[in-house]
């Protein structure tokens, strides 16, 4: 019974195994990045960046069709450009970062949809927006796994400055010159993971696997390490169950994965011991100290 539901699809079909590997790679790389996005109160920035990537991917698509390399490079360029431009606008003008980012990503998104629709069909647009996790080829898998490895490595190296930059940026600036380096390296990681994620889940859904597990983890863990572990576990679980749901009920896989993550988020919101609804309402024992 369990064999048939959980194991059989992966045992029988190569595309399911590839999809699972792709999702695991995305979960490993993007989810920890999402935890830091959340801790820096930049969850919506992640969303904006995801939209910003679209025109770059679209230009890549225009030049060489559904080519992995062209779309990746295009997405990276567009994402980095929006990140840098909005950072620049914030520093030299009176506009705050959220507003300047929103302005750039809206322009970027409109441009992207326009470019895709002039050349491709609606199917192509759907591919870019929602990804094709069930049709990942070898190159795409290598790309996803490389991005995941790089992200984990960079996060390990940058961990301490990044935590400081999130918790007390003024202090980091007062003791070290790493603040700006940390900020832009981190933004690059966000862009890189979104570009990787969009091959599997699409530009709109990639940000879901980044933010939803992180937001759900906040209700279970109190330390940064704990948050990352719980978030990655939730992302794995969502990927596996989402893929199985999409297999058994013929649902589109990207949205199925994100919806499972969404359900886990909703359950955490209610049941989570660290500030969930029930924990807030129930009387608590006083802290021992």
């Amino acid at each position, binding site marked *: 019974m369990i064999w048939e539901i959980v194991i059989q699809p992966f045992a029988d079909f190569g595309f399911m195994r590839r999809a699972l590997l792709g999702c695991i790679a995305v979960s490993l790389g993007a989810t920890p990045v999402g935890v830091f996005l959340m801790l820096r109160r930049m969850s919506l920035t992640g969303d904006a960046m995801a939209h910003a990537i679209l025109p770059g991917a679209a230009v890549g698509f225009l030049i060489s069709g559904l080519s992995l390399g062209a779309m990746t490079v295009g997405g990276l360029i567009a994402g980095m450009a929006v990140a840098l431009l909005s950072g620049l606008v914030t520093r030299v003008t009176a506009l705050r970062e959220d507003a300047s980012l929103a302005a750039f990503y809206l322009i970027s998104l409109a441009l992207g949809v326009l470019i895709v629709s002039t050349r491709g069909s609606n199917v192509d647009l759907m591919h870019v927006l929602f990804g094709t996790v069930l049709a990942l080829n070898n190159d795409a898998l290598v790309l996803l796994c490389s991005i995941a490895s790089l992200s984990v490595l960079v996060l390990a190296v940058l961990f*301490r400055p990044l935590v400081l930059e999130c918790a007390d940026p003024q*202090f980091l600036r007062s003791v070290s010159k790493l603040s700006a380096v940390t900020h832009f390296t981190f933004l690059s990681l966000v862009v890189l993971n979104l570009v990787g994620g969009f091959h599997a889940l699409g530009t709109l859904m990639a940000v879901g696997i980044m933010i939803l597990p992180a937001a759900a983890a906040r209700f279970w863990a109190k330390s940064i390490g704990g948050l990352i572990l719980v978030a990655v576990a939730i992302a794995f679980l969502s990927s596996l169950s989402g893929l199985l749901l999409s297999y058994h009920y013929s649902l589109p896989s990207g949205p199925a994965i994100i919806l499972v993550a969404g359900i886990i988020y909703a359950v955490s919101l209610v049941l989570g011991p660290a500030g969930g609804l029930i924990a807030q309402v129930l009387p608590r024992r006083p802290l021992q*100290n």
Partner: protein
Amino acid sequence: MTSALAFRDLTLGYDRLPAVQQLHADIAEGSLTAIFGPNGAGKSTLLKGVTGALAPLQGNVEFGALERGDIAYLPQQSDIDRTFPLSVVDLVAMGLWHEIGPFGWLGKKQRARVDAALASVGLTGLESRPIGSLSGGQMQRALFARLLLQDARLVLLDEPFTAIDARTMADLLDVIRSWHTEGRTVLAVLHDAETVRAHFPETLLLARELVAHGPTEQVLTVENQFRARQMCEACAGPPHVCGRDAA
């Protein structure tokens, strides 16, 4: 006596509106100085000028033998994200940044120093509490422990006793006094004249321009304070000019 800091015709401001004007003063090495003045006098701005967070519009700040790593700065409390999942010991250990940097290991010796710093601000036993659960006073104690670990020769404090209970304030004043006896230079922005009179031998009275600088009893006279208030009101013009760093 050598000076730890020298303000040379220093003008600091935001959007080209000066908040501190042509300040000329020397802060002696090892002195314990209060920066005092009405709201909007440019007190916090002056500290930002010393840390380098704000570039001078004119003039400069000269540091005698001090380097960037010799300065510790405690900004006003609102700048830390209190919901961040950090424990007290994590927060305090940040003070060791100059020794361990971004990658160094927190060894046994460092750990002992963190414990000692926590003990000297009276936070022993709260090491593993999340910072979000601390009271305002406890948080300020933790930040002072972090300053202790920074082991800086110049300590800058911006309104360290705002919204702090009397007991905590007394303990933290002890810490400041011990810095003074160790020969460190301490500059503290304060708004309470009684505290300044009781604990700070030197005062720099600021009303965007320098009003007076020297031994506290000579500086904090009724006439000087009245003059400072008048100067600040006179120069204020439209409220946004002076009100920018009022806090």
